[in-house]
């Protein structure tokens, strides 16, 4: 998924994570009107103002707008989170604080997918009696249709494209061009309550593909208006749009009487009404959050610098803020083609001033100094050991070791290379400047080049041709997975197959035969623990190759107004859980 401030590449996205902490908050929601247990960071691990009180109007605001309201045509994590208010998928992230939030849980389906044929066929059974906002029943064919429409990228171009890549439906053009749904062989519906996915090749993490996005939310074919469906998606969830959604302005959602809470353990649906205002300035949203006039900053990526300053210096405000790990790891890929010698790459890692890089991201509130490539929220991730650097906020680099590595590399006096960064991101600029400063000391000369973030991940750092032509040795980069497993996190950034001409998410261009083989094999492994072990080995190998210099695991600073109830950080989306919030008074 994408976060609004940080659009990764096309194929990839990001999302969020959880905390490496235990799920202490649990689901104790029976203390009525909210307990006022507001404490700094309390919402990162547990439920603040737990409540079951219904009613009121939940006000949400965003500076920009959703990529679309069509659940199949969105990639931003916050949009996918929000879409669950009016749509249900086959599976969805479990509505629980802590790590439990990253697990998939049945939504329209009765249970998780049942694999057969060596993970090439996945079967889901639907619950009975679920209805759309107009009272018609949700049937398996609607889900088949919903998946089929994601095949037409010319109509739905924002969403993920996993189904197109994984399903065995070669040549299918989507229902807008090919009206006969029987021509779509990727999904079968033996009866009204059974959905069967047919894959080209085994894929053991298919449940995540089904649940992380809104692409299995049912769409009644008769009501589908193609690209305009996002103006008024038909609700299958607890709320329905009142009138149409107005792009750049907002919209209002009211209760959907045809939603049956008994079939839906993941959504509390406390407020009676939800108002979304789009196009409000980010700083203004922060001001209104502090006053409680707006309850939720939709993008969920944290407050702006001005509010950050106010919150951190005022204990009263600080008690209403959370500081969870946001899912991203900001790291520095070191291109193995521009700097082919391992010792030269090691010299960069040795010399890097981790302290200055950590400060560039805002110290302890901004992030955590990293060891492994996978951030702590990834299921089964091991912390790993520091290889050529130290995950210590005070570590300023080891010039002696760096010089020794340079000598082994045959360049005792250092070398020159280009480092790129996103010029409109002050943190990345500060990171690049800090790295230049520390590498200068051992004779490695960096030429810094900034590029606009709109083109950076596609045409500059994301283009191997550009990288080669411009002698780009390293750059700033960040990644958050589509779903929180080692596959979701590491495969797009380290598999040799993932190297593409534009929008390359593997800018280190690591194409290691051993790593590639592990990726090919791991997709047929059924046991999640065994898969996690492989992921950790790959993680270690990347660092052993000095192909990535770890930097910081990002933390966001989220503010929860005192009148917001049932608030907790949801690890699956990397922000508060929007379907369970309520309001007081």
């Amino acid at each position, binding site marked *: 998924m994408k976060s609004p401030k940080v659009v990764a590449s096309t194929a990839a996205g990001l999302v969020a994570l959880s905390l490496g902490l235990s799920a202490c908050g649990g689901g104790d929601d029976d203390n009525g009107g909210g307990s006022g247990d507001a404490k700094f960071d309390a919402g990162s691990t547990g439920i603040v103002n737990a409540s079951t009180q219904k009613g009121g109007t939940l006000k949400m605001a965003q500076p920009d707008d959703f990529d679309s309201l069509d659940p199949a045509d969105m990639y931003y994590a916050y949009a996918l989170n929000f879409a669950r208010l009016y749509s249900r998928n086959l599976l969805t992230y479990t509505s629980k604080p802590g790590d439990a939030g990253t697990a998939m849980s049945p939504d329209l389906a009765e249970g998780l997918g049942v694999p057969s044929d060596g993970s090439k066929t996945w079967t889901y059974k639907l619950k009975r009696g679920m209805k759309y906002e107009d009272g018609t029943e949700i049937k398996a064919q609607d889900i088949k249709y919903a998946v089929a429409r994601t095949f037409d990228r010319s109509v739905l171009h924002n969403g993920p494209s996993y189904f197109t890549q994984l399903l065995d439906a070669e040549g299918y053009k989507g229902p807008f061009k090919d009206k006969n749904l029987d021509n779509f062989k990727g999904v079968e519906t033996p009866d009204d309550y059974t959905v069967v996915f047919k894959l080209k090749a085994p894929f053991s993490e298919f449940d995540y593909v089904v649940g992380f996005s809104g692409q299995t939310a049912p769409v009644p074919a008769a009501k589908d208006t193609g690209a305009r469906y996002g103006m008024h998606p038909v609700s299958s969830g607890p709320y329905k749009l009142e009138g149409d959604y107005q792009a750049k302005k907002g919209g209002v959602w009211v209760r959907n009487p045809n939603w049956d809470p008994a079939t839906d353990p993941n959504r509390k649906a406390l407020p009676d009404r939800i108002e979304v205002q789009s196009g409000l300035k980010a700083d203004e949203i922060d001001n209104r959050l502090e006053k409680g006039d707006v309850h939720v900053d939709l993008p969920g990526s944290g407050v702006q610098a001005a509010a950050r300053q106010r919150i951190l210096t005022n204990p009263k405000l600080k008690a209403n803020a959370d500081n969870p790990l946001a899912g991203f790891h900001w790291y520095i890929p070191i291109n193995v083609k521009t700097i082919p010698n391992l010792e030269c790459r090691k010299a960069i890692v040795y010399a890097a001033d981790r302290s*200055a890089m950590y400060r560039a991201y805002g110290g302890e*509130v901004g992030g955590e100094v990293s060891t492994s490539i996978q951030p702590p929220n990834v299921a089964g991730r091991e912390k790993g050991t520091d290889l050529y650097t130290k995950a210590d906020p005070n570590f300023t680099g080891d010039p002696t070791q760096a010089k020794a590595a340079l000598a082994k590399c045959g360049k005792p006096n250092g070398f020159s290379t280009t480092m790129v960064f996103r010029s409109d991101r002050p943190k990345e*600029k500060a990171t690049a400047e800090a790295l230049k400063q520390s590498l200068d000391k051992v004779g490695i000369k960096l030429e810094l080049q900034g590029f*606009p973030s709109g083109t950076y991940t596609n*045409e500059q750092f994301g283009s191997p041709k550009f990288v080669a032509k*411009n002698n780009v040795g390293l750059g700033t980069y960040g990644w958050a997975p589509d779903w929180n497993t080692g596959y979701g996190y590491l495969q797009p950034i380290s598999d040799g197959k993932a190297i593409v001409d534009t929008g390359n998410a593997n800018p280190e261009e690591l194409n290691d035969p051993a790593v590639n083989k592990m990726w090919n094999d791991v997709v047929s492994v059924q046991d999640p623990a065994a898969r996690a072990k492989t992921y950790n080995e790959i993680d270690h190998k990347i660092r052993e190759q000095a192909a990535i210099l770890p930097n910081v695991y990002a933390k966001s600073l989220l503010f929860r107004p005192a009148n917001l109830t049932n608030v907790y950080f949801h690890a699956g989306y990397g922000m508060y859980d929007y379907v369970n919030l309520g309001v007081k008074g």
Partner: protein
Amino acid sequence: MTAPIEVSGSEAEAQPDAVLAGMERKAIQGRSLGQIAWLRLKRDKVALSGGAFVLLLIFLSLPGVTGLVAGWLGSPPNDFHQNLIDPTLGGPLEPLGGISAEHIFGLEPINGRDLFSRVLYGARVSLLIGVLATMVSVVIGTVMGITAGYFGGWVDTLIARTMDVFLAFPLVLFAISLVGVIPRDLFGLTGNNLRIAILVFIIGFFNWPYIGRIIRGQTMSLREREFVDAARSMGARNSTILFKEILPNLVAPVLVYATLLIPTNILFEAALSFLGVGINPPDPSWGGMLSQATELYSVAPHFVIVPGLAIFVTVLAFNLFGDGLRDALDPRAR
């Protein structure tokens, strides 16, 4: 851009009243146009102080001088002083932006670099780009304007329409996209030298129509004047008339306009740096500093004020000087 400046060609030959008045008492003294202008300019204290500041800035930007002054009153522009910075909030630990005897303008947030020397080094970039881009505009604008104005007819139509096209050009968008696609080295230039060259090109090459229009208008009125007719009737060729008769009469408006264009270009460079298409770090530039400061104004307000003030004072000085120069060269334009 600024409005066209009215400078009448008649000033070139007529002796101003003030000078004629003085002739009755003193012996008649021949004075050139330049001397007369200088006499008037000397009386304009505001313009002179603007000019003095500009000269000081140019002096401080000379290679060698910058480093010396920065080393004397500050510390090298790229040295970090992170021990003086709050790691979480990013602002200087000491009040007033960390202003002290060692750091007279305070410290940059996060890295703790010395603001005084960064502003000083930033002046080089701003002046260099401002002046070079202005020269590009002036040269192209004068050549095109004089050609269009003197020859008229289809030449005029062609050039005038070209100017319209240039004026309608979405310059900022062009700059942003151009910076994204330029190669690492071009014409033997790399790194920031290349960036500066590109910025000079963008700013200079696309701003010439403003000056071109003024020159064209001036030339059109000049070519109808008696002295041009006289030269023509004596058999002077077009080139002689252009270079010997018309061009000298255009020096005043060109000079004035150039002085007023420099600050506009400095601001434009700052705007481009602000948008992230200026020069690359760690080299400082005023626009780049401002752009970073907008993120951090709540943490370190001084970080906005220092480069902002530098731009403000420099632009003001150039404008005051330019206004004074115009008044001196053409008192009727007051």
